[in-house]
């Protein structure tokens, strides 16, 4: 099934929660409003015509200039060999999205990673802890305005260059 058809089906069911334009690409990008992302994922997985059984990737992107955080969901269907990329934009101050970890189990870790590194809150996740950074780490390091701490547990994070004599 091609992207336009997937887009049409989604819009039939969810109306204006799915943005009207579609960006043709190798992974066609369909914009979705934050509140509808979990619902559209569920529809896309459960509809036997689309059957997106795999969440290939989930990435959060910090668009500091637009004051937004974009989250990309790359969905793939092993049955039909088609693919789509759902894109959600949420405000940078308090990014919050409904979880997809109940739809695809791998979403659990991918969302924890996005929370850890970018500070996106996934509502309904249930176990939203840091995944990669230590539990006592402060801040979300992949944000553009993240400042590296001077030291961590007494270990300084700076090193004098040996070339500056």
């Amino acid at each position: 099934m091609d992207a336009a058809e997937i887009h049409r089906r989604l819009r039939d069911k969810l109306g204006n929660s799915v943005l009207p334009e579609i960006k043709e690409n190798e992974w066609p990008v369909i914009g979705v409003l934050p509140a509808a992302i979990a619902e559209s994922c569920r529809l896309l997985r459960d509809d036997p015509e689309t059957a997106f059984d795999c969440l290939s990737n989930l990435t959060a992107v910090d668009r500091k200039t637009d004051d937004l955080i974009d989250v990309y969901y790359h969905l793939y269907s092993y049955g039909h060999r088609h693919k789509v990329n759902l894109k959600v934009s949420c405000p940078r101050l308090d990014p919050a999205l409904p979880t997809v970890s109940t739809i695809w189990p791998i979403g659990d870790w991918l969302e924890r990673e996005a929370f850890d590194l970018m500070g996106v809150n996934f509502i309904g996740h249930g176990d939203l802890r840091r995944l990669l950074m230590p539990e006592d780490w402060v801040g979300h390091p992949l944000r553009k305005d993240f400042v590296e701490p001077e030291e961590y547990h007494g270990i300084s994070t700076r090193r004098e260059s040996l070339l500056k004599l």
Partner: protein
Amino acid sequence: MSTTSIEIGLERETPAGLETEEMTLNMGPQHPSTHGVLRFVVKADGEIMRRAIPDIGYLHRSIEKISEKVGYHGFMPYTDRVDYVSAMQCNQGWAIACESLAGIEVPRRGEYCRVIACEFGRIASHLISVGATAMDIGAFTPFTHALREREKINDILEELCGARLTFNYMRIGGCAWDIPPGFIKRATAFLDAFEPLIDEYNELISFNKIYTERMGNVAPVSAELAIAWNLVGPNLRGSGVKYDVRKDEPYSVYPEFDFDVPVGEGKMGEVGDCWDRYMVRMDEMKESCKILRQALGGLPEGPVVAKVARTFKPPVGEAYVRVEGSRGDMGWFVVSDGTAFPVRTHIRTGSYSAMAIVEVLSQGLMIADLIAVIASLDIVAPEVDR
């Protein structure tokens, strides 16, 4: 928490006067049998695990953030370190992602050089994997056999690009160097010597009774479970799903080569058990040899690298590219804003999902089997953490 997590009843009859309680064991981050710095918190009832909770991030080197500071060309050496066991495919993934952003076409000879480098890398990686699996199970000798051959591949790749492990061979638009004189002869000689050795390994370990008992029927993953957890590459094929990015979403010049996609058949138990995952890697080495022979034989003439500006500024947009790494389908996501530095790079790797599924797979297994599961999933720490 997740839809597919299984609740296994481990309640057994406890003789009167005896009490049992759940034991929490810590495995790693320094543990000789976890590949690299992985940590598991094992909740066990005696020898039987209720579950093993993976704790990752001990090798989180912020490679994704570094890409935002060093630019497109400068990021190439870092891609080696995403998966140091088989760095070539990571090189290729990044190069293809950038090329697809900017619409660059790679010369055919460059593509062939890439394929040659990648397939040698795949053999080298699978050798480490099968050798380490055998070592973790308790057989040290196969590991030395595997390393002996890996050293020879290291020599070949060193000839190609000057490095043994972290190659930095590919460039956006092609490869850094053409193949050196006499390379084809030496590479073919290696293949001639290596192909019979795969059968020797099979005789030595794969069909060894102790080995098959230890690996067969342990932690089978059904095809549905594998797809839901986004298992990729040999782990997915071990579960019987015939899917290879090189075949099903072709990139580079892979459609020109004739090779098979081995899948797990459940010869030693259920489909998708540890032995199947292991055996898929063995068979893939043979397929890689096949591809290598065709690529070495049909190497076209011409340049190996296209003309690409030094300050590489791709147009605004995003690209998500998947290549078949040694640990499977590796996704490279790049967002460009038109400047010389990417806005965001995200690498979705095979070991990441393999690590995530351990929590489900470990339920009800013996503690010793956890080692077999990790080894058969071929988890490499930097790929999990990046």
